[in-house]
């Protein structure tokens, strides 16, 4: 078995695509129309374009438990997932200039430095730099 997809629940797929590409710097991989306004929409890291895909999934709009779970994680400040960066301070400054809101600035956590931001689509996301 191989891990090829990581799913992230989003409230608005177009808004998510804009944020994950224009702001975070991911690259769109697949965009396949499904029923209604739903899409099978994935992005990949520009550094690993054949690597794992992030599926921007509108589950909270169609499945109440997914919405509840996402809301509760958000309220508790818990990140839905995390991404790795080479220099978290640079990334923090770049994203802050682009208007991204951080609930936690880069913070030393022993073997890593971590920060948490709002992806504007219902999730907190953690950034990590390995020391």
């Amino acid at each position, binding site marked *: 078995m191989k891990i090829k997809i990581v799913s992230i629940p989003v409230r608005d797929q177009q808004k998510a695509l804009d944020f994950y590409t224009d702001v975070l710097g991911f690259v769109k991989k697949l965009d396949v129309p499904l029923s209604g306004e739903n899409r099978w929409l994935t992005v990949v890291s520009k550094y690993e374009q054949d690597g794992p895909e992030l599926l921007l999934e509108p589950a909270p709009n169609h499945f109440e438990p997914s919405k509840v779970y996402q809301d509760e994680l958000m309220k508790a400040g*818990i990140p839905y997932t995390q991404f790795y960066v080479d220099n978290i301070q640079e990334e923090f400054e770049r994203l802050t200039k682009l208007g991204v809101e951080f609930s*936690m600035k880069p913070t030393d956590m*022993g073997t890593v430095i971590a920060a948490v931001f709002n992806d504007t689509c219902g999730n907190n996301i953690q950034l990590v730099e390995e020391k």
Partner: protein
Amino acid sequence: MTYYIQELKRIKRTCFSNKVQVDIAVNTKRYIDTNFDKEISLDLLAHLRFTSKYHLIRVFKKYYGITPRQYLINKRVEKAKIFLKAGKSVSDTCYTIGFESINSFSNLFKTKTGISPSIYRKATFDKSRQ
């Protein structure tokens, strides 16, 4: 303060409060990351951190879950995969990542990945050219 930040503070207090130990582990990892292609012994790593071999192994394993030697092996295999995928020959890859014997490199690679380096190269380099 969110629940998550409270939890992180608690984790930092309980798991990462000993800065000296964290520094030993982190700096050992960094040394391996930049010198994986050279001869690295446990004696050398311990000497660099002014500590005993036994303490170094304990501390490193506490923060990374594996020993420095296991980390070095993993790092070499990870780099070997990159070189093989880019088309480097098995022998060139072997010497580039710090091995002296193609046999020992091949055996280790197969132990870690399940396939020999030549098959891995065939499967990845050839595939990337299609």
